[in-house]
């Protein structure tokens, strides 16, 4: 509740990360979402992921659209700049912010209404441009703030709390992200922190557009029998293709795995993703196969989770635009303004 200040007190023995920050330093204000909301679990996972990655909180820019999910950036990383923009337009604001300063970490938080309905275009174009970001959709299949209307990710045939049956086909944002060329695509479940935290860490370390579709049940409007986004339904139909351990470049690999059961993926920053395969034939670097697998399993009513795709040589928008290494927002008159002499030359060419 917003009128309750979050106590600043913390246990003196709280573990600290590399920069000397505790878990508490990654928290924000108290959540105003409903008790038991899946989104709060995602907030907790983001806090843990950032703490474990030893990110300096102020080096993150958290940007969202409008909706329940888009409120969550106030609940984590209180020392980061945040931007609650307009409905469905987080991707463009994030793209602009990223162009201005390539050195920050960009966390885009959106929902299924925000990204699959009003903002489907901006979602698609930010992904296809390869903006270096972690794009999280907190996907509950309904509009919470306006009291339970279906969103575009609601499955056909699923039932609303008021008893209506959804007759429209659903949009699978993870499948779309794959088609649009995202360098990193994952799906997870807010109720599975073990799976979610390493995925968020890996996504942040990924250079390029990293997309995570997180099924996050709405306890107020979409957690009943007949919903395909309820806690019970997702637990029953969750088909994880792998389990991920994330290790930063600074950490030695200590865990030993049985040969043949793991795959180690090295990212551009030297961090390593160790994947324990659950689906034997699942090929992590095959975009087309991943798309096919998602569709086959969806037809069976299964929700595929885990790290679905990683591009080995991912590039980002700045690489495509050949921008200088220095963040554009640090360039001064000296670097930007060509001055009177160049102008005189230009004038002369127009006579």
């Amino acid at each position, binding site marked *: 509740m*917003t009128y309750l200040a979050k106590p600043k007190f913390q246990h003196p023995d709280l573990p600290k990360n590399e920069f000397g920050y505790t878990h508490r330093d990654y928290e924000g204000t108290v959540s105003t979402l409903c008790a038991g909301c899946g989104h709060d679990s995602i907030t907790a996972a983001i806090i843990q992921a950032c703490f474990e990655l030893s990110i*300096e*909180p*102020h*080096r993150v*820019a958290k*940007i969202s659209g409008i909706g329940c999910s888009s409120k969550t*950036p*106030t609940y984590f990383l*209180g*020392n*980061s*700049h*945040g*931007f*609650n*923009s*307009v409905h469905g*337009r987080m*991707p*463009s*604001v*994030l*793209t*602009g*912010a*990223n*162009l*201005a*300063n390539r*050195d*920050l970490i960009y966390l885009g938080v959106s929902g299924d209404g925000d990204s699959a309905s009003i903002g489907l*275009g*901006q979602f*698609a*174009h930010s992904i296809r*441009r390869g903006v270096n970001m972690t794009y999280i959709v907190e996907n509950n299949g309904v509009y919470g703030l306006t009291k339970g209307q279906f969103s575009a990710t609601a499955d056909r045939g699923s039932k609303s709390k008021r008893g209506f049956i959804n007759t429209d086909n659903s949009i699978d944002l993870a499948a779309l992200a794959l088609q649009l060329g995202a360098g990193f695509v994952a799906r997870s479940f807010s109720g599975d922190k073990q799976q979610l935290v390493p995925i968020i860490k890996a996504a942040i370390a990924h250079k390029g557009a990293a997309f995570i579709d997180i099924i996050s049940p709405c306890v107020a409007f979409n957690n009943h029998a007949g919903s395909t986004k309820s806690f019970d339904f997702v637990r029953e139909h969750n088909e994880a293709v792998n389990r991920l351990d994330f290790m930063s470049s600074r950490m030695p690999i200590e865990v030993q795995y049985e040969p043949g059961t793991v795959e180690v993926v090295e990212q551009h920053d030297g961090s390593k993703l160790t994947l324990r395969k659950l689906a034997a034939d699942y090929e992590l670097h095959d975009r087309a196969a991943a798309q096919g697998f998602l569709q086959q399993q969806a037809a069976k009513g299964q929700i595929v989770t885990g790290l679905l795709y990683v591009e080995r040589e991912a590039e980002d928008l700045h690489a495509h*635009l*050949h*921008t*200088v*290494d220095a963040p*554009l*927002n640090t*360039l*001064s*008159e000296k*670097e*930007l*303004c*060509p*001055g*009177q002499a*160049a*102008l*005189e030359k*230009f*004038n002369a060419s*127009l*006579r």
Partner: protein
Amino acid sequence: MPTATPISRVNDFVVRFANVNGSGSASANEMFARAVLRMGIPAAPRNIFPSNIQGLPTWYEVRVTEANHLGARGGTDLIVAMNPQTFDKDIAGIEPGGYLLYDSTKPLPASKFRQDITVIGVPLTAICNREYTDPRQRQLFKNIIYIGVLTALLEMDVKVVEQLIGEQYKGKEKLIEPNIKALHIGRDYATLNLACPIGLRLKKSSKVGDRIFIEGNSAAALGAVYGGATVCAWYPITPSSGLADAFTQHCARLRVDKTSERAKYAIIQAEDELASIGIVIGASWNGARAFTATSGPGISLMQEFIGLAYFAEIPAVIFDVQRAGPSTGMPTRTQQCDIISCAYASHGDTKHVLLFPEDPAESFDFSAQAFDLADRLQTPIFVMLDLDIGMNHHLSRPLTWDDSRKYDRGKVMTAEELEAGKEFGRYLDVDGDGITYRTYPGTHPTKGSFFTRGTSRDRYAKYTEEGAPYVDNMQRLVRKFDTAKDLVPRPLLANADKPTKYGVIYYGSTAPAMDEAIHMIEAHGHALDRMRIRAFPFHSSVNSFVADHDFVFVVEQNRDAQLRSLIVNECGIDPVRLVPIPHYDGTPITARFIAKAIGEHLDKLKVTPMKVSS
């Protein structure tokens, strides 16, 4: 024999080329305009083109004007009628005593012509068919051949045209010789077969001076380079696409790091105008200077984001190259019709800063200044060009830049200031000007972060729906807008030679026509004080100008007298005192129109013309 005396004028006439879009005429016609300028004679060309790639009619008009009347004049003294589709209409538009140059390959009945004009036939198609076998060449060289004919008819310096051909095909030398040959084919035909020169003649002059020939879109784009813009996001739309294109070209020339060969800029062709303005807002929020270029339909699409930038107080520069609305309207015709939709863009109580450049040079100046204003005022700044300024080449004073000038980045609190314990409230007005401090993301590990939102908040950026802090904030925004009045370009005043009870207010591309019209009005014995408004919010001198006159005409290029409404509304002026002079058929306003409309009003007001002293 013509029934009207053939017009006889030196360096003061209008030549109009009627062509078919896509026939390659544009470069030949533009070369004619450039040749006039190279002869030292001021000229004002205007391209009248359709929303089409190939096949529809297009016109190119060159006003030759020793007297420096650079606005459109209206009427045609010599038409080069190359489009059968518009032939009848083109002939109807010739002034009595004017001239027609047409392709006489196919004989036309006498009924096609007028008795009061001089008809000059040149068998252009026959000449081309004789000289060239390739159909494309026949078409392209036909354009150069008629330019050659004109050099003889108008007594032009052919060396100047030859030199321009050389410059145009620099790097493609193979094309120089055949073009010069085509030029002389036309010139020789005219010298041998026609009575040269005609009554319209070009005589070398020195009235061009050091002025440059440039489109407003290019000048505005260069202003953005000089003003330090690093991020540009845009969506193609006529007539503003050229601005983004020009920015791309200027950046490639001026903004590539010499050592790394990498770009000190980022340009995104976005998926729509919503994304364009979103990218601009994101970049500006993060401390870069960013802009978008669009036209009326784009402004309509950007409304929600513009309100966010106003309320969350994020700098943004928006170039609106206006075209005739509403809806798709006349997408290739000019108007000043987005004044109200920009001034009050978005839902809720909003007001925005608008700048009104009159020509390319001022487009350059205001463009660069817009970035300082956006940072200083932390709000969207609209640079209001129009199709006439943006897409036509204008003879314009040279662009200048003061090398000692520093960018005004506004109130940005630094890590050092935060560290030293300076109080930071994102929406806390510490000095009464309504402008508050901001921090760029990533400035300091523990101080100065805040949450940006479109929802209401208190002075420390904390979300609130309480009435008092909301009103406090909205009042501060009004205060900030008042501060803007003294930061934006001031109106320019030109008083009549004698005291008068009447004034005229105008802005933007109306300026050259108004400057010319004032002479015509004065010649009729009327006196008018003039005020050219260059920005909104209005400086206090606008109020006093209206107060000092019984009636003030407001000349503008839209139906609803939008600037007049803005003056009435914002300055609290009795509407009766402001007489609208609207021009909105999509053509650039002319001095003839203004002088006639104002003259009629003065007659209605029973203003007795003062005796013109000899």
